[in-house]
């Protein structure tokens, strides 16, 4: 019964989405206020309907309703309650319902917070969102209905993939989806602007918070995925340049470019067509990511057994939205007249450089990710493109990006001179060189990590220099600087903090370049040395869990005869799925991680294979990402964003600085 209610709610949402994609757009075209006014209630209604469907699905999971196919395939009565709940979106069908629900929530948010939006623009944005929702709801109902029944019901479900029975799963997909779907909103704004043929500061002011929010969530989602892979897969790495990881990186990169170019639209009314194009591509990349994950066309660790029909459907949706958007763009883009002009050396110029470099990196990652698909379909070649390619091709582009991102915020708009810039940044360069030589000396002359540390110091130093400059820290007395710091817009703080976050991530990645690892077969009582620590295997014992059994090793980490840590990595066996998972033991002090994994055991020799890692600065990768997202959030809470955007008329008279 509940499943039927869910199915009905989803169908209802489809009908509402259809109405939402027709009435407001038609109303905006014919200037019919009543038709335009239907957008907000339709978006709210759609949101309620999908939320109800999602709740029904979750209920079926919680009570382990084995007459529902989706539950049978992905759940089991012995699973802990938390994973029954998170398991709702731990599968194809459920995750798509989550996707459309977040989309509907975004639509509801636009209609709720967008009271100040010009009514035609609002109607068009919601109409486009309705159109996107329509496509995906059709996809869910046509190919991936989560409410399909099975009769007679089997005794119990087949269980959730054990790797997914983790708290990381509870958070990673929703955060990532908020990011992906957030770009649907900027896309809708872009399309609405193209239809209206007008982009101005007010438009930029509406697009920026959405691109900021999407970017912040995507940053968190990607970082969480990377962290999850780090501790759950037990390979000791944090990024594998796997196609699906790349698929989430692509919208992030374009989103980063969009975030910056939207500032130029808002402040200077320049780069309008470019920003529109980025908004379209960012959503395109989000759809591409969804397609790559859901179709399984690429060989990836994320590849689940899958259905080609679904891939084709998403590809069709991707084509439909992008072809439509690009046609509209080709037709209307010439109507966007830039009003602000700027010199090449200026903050606008720095942002153009940022966009250029970020888009070049995107192009490299895009080509590398899709090349195997292309080579297979065109030349019948089975190839793979791995980490060495991405490192070799993208790092040379990251270097100028890091160099330039330090200078950008310190430059004034319109026209900048290089001399004051040098005055503000010289000490960062000195710091970077000092760090380079220091790291070279300490690491035993490993050049690449030292270069990485130098750039990290440069970027973090420049973020501090930026704040110091804005608060006039070294030019006036501290009290004055404090007053200035309090008066500084939160967007300025956010930008500096996000930039510093990039520096921290860069330091973490460089630190991982100095990571040490060792793979040993040990019998209990034996020990081995790594990174100046003695690692002693004390023993291996059996442990019983709710739906698994495990072999758990006890490893003492000893320095100077003192036991510093006792680590207990284990290897779990899930009988329902007939599958092993690795439970890594990690001890961190925020400067480095001690990381231990137990592999197979040789009962005859009484040995277990133990892999141990010393991961220098590994936590900084995720810490830095969180700081980046924090910077985004701070920027989002800026008064300028919270206070209603200026109305069209005042914006047309003179762009606010």
């Amino acid at each position, binding site marked *: 019964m509940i499943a039927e209610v869910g199915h009905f709610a989803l169908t209802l949402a489809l009908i509402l989405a259809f109405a939402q994609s027709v009435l407001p757009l038609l109303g905006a075209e014919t200037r019919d206020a009543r038709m335009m006014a239907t957008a907000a209630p339709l978006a709210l209604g759609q949101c309620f309907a999908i939320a109800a469907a999602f709740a029904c699905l979750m209920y079926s999971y919680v009570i382990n309703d084995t007459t529902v196919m989706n539950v049978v395939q992905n759940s089991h009565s012995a699973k802990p309650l938390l994973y029954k709940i998170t398991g709702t979106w731990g599968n194809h069908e459920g995750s798509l319902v989550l996707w459309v629900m977040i989309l509907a929530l975004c639509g509801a948010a636009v209609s709720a917070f967008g009271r100040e939006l010009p009514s035609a623009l609002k109607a068009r944005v919601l109409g486009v969102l309705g159109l996107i929702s329509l496509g995906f709801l059709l996809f869910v109902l046509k190919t991936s209905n989560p409410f399909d029944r099975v009769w007679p019901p089997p005794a119990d479900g087949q269980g959730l993939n054990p790797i997914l029975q983790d708290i990381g799963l509870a958070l990673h997909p929703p955060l990532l989806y908020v990011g992906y779907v957030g770009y649907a909103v900027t896309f809708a704004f872009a399309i609405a602007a193209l239809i209206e043929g007008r982009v101005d500061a007010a438009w930029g002011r509406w697009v920026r918070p959405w691109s900021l929010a999407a970017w912040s969530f995507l940053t968190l989602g990607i970082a969480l995925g990377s962290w999850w892979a780090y501790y759950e897969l037990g390979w000791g790495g944090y990024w594998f340049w796997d196609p699906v990881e790349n698929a989430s990186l692509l919208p992030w990169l374009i989103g980063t470019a969009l975030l910056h170019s939207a500032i130029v639209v808002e402040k200077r009314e320049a780069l309008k067509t470019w920003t529109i194009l980025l908004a379209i591509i960012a959503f395109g990349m989000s759809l591409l990511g969804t397609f790559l994950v859901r179709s399984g066309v690429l*060989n990836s660790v994320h*590849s689940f*057994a899958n259905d080609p029909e679904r891939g084709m459907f998403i590809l069709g949706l991707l084509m439909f939205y992008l072809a439509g958007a690009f046609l509209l763009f080709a037709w209307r883009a010439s109507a966007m007249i830039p009003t602000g002009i700027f010199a*090449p050396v200026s903050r606008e110029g720095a942002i153009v450089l940022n966009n250029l470099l970020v*888009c070049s990196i995107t192009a490299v990652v895009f080509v590398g990710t899709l090349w195997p698909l292309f080579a297979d379909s065109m030349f019948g070649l089975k190839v793979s*493109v791995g980490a060495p*390619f991405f490192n070799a091709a993208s790092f040379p582009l990251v270097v100028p990006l890091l160099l330039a991102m330090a200078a950008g915020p310190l430059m004034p708009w319109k026209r900048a001179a290089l001399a004051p810039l040098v005055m503000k940044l010289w000490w960062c360069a000195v710091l970077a060189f000092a760090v380079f030589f220091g790291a070279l000396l300490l690491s035993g002359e490993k050049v690449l990590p030292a270069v990485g540390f130098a750039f990290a110091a440069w970027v973090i130093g420049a973020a501090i220099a930026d704040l110091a400059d804005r608060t006039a820290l070294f030019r006036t007395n501290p009290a004055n600087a404090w007053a200035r710091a309090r008066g500084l817009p939160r967007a300025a703080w956010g930008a500096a903090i996000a930039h510093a976050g990039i520096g921290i991530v860069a330091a973490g990645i460089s630190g991982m370049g100095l990571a040490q690892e060792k793979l040993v077969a040990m019998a209990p009582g034996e020990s081995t040395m790594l990174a100046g620590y003695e690692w002693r295997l004390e023993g291996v014992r059996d442990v019983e869990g709710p739906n698994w059994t495990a072999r758990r090793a006890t490893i003492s980490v000893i320095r100077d005869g003192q036991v510093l840590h006792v680590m207990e990595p284990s290897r779990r066996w899930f009988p329902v799925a007939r599958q092993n*998972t690795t439970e890594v033991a990690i001890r961190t002090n925020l400067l480095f991680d001690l990381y231990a994994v137990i592999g197979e055991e040789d009962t005859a020799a009484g040995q277990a294979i133990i892999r141990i890692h010393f991961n220098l600065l590994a936590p900084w990768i995720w810490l830095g990402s969180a700081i980046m997202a924090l910077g985004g959030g701070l920027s989002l809470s800026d008064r300028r964003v919270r206070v209603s955007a200026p109305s069209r008329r005042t914006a047309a008279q003179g762009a606010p600085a």
Partner: protein
Amino acid sequence: MNTARKKRRMWVVLLCAIGLGSATALTLTAFQDNIVFFRSPSDIMADRPGPERAFRLGGLVEAGSVERLPAASGQLPTMRFRVTDGVHQVSVNFQGVLPDLFREGQGVVTMGRLTPDGVFRASEVLARHDENYMPPEVADALKRAGQWQPALGPAPAPATWNTMDPARPASQGRTGS
């Protein structure tokens, strides 16, 4: 005003050209060194790659072929198994921890080099998230070897593979295991 805009446009075009050019150059040079080809056991029999070239070898882990070579004290044990596409087999040596989803009879993709004695020395054995998942290259290798027609059902049990007649469709000669 107009000249300023023209000048700016020139700058932007120049920068774009530099950016695109360097991205293309980087991609092409990195491609040359880093593209890894996939080969099935039959491919290797037909055209044996030299020991200098790393490639991916994929197929099914032959049932009953996994063994642990005795290791000297303190050394890591080496795992040895055979990868088959139903027509040919290649012995693989791997020193390290096999991924959680490695199992006899399942699809596997390994990366490494072929030693002169014909044993594939794997540096990496790739893990999958899902036990029902068949790597597309492996599925393709099985199809090319004439051992599996996906339309007729799931991949055959590997225990039957070495005795299978390649001319006969696999799903008929399948025995459960």
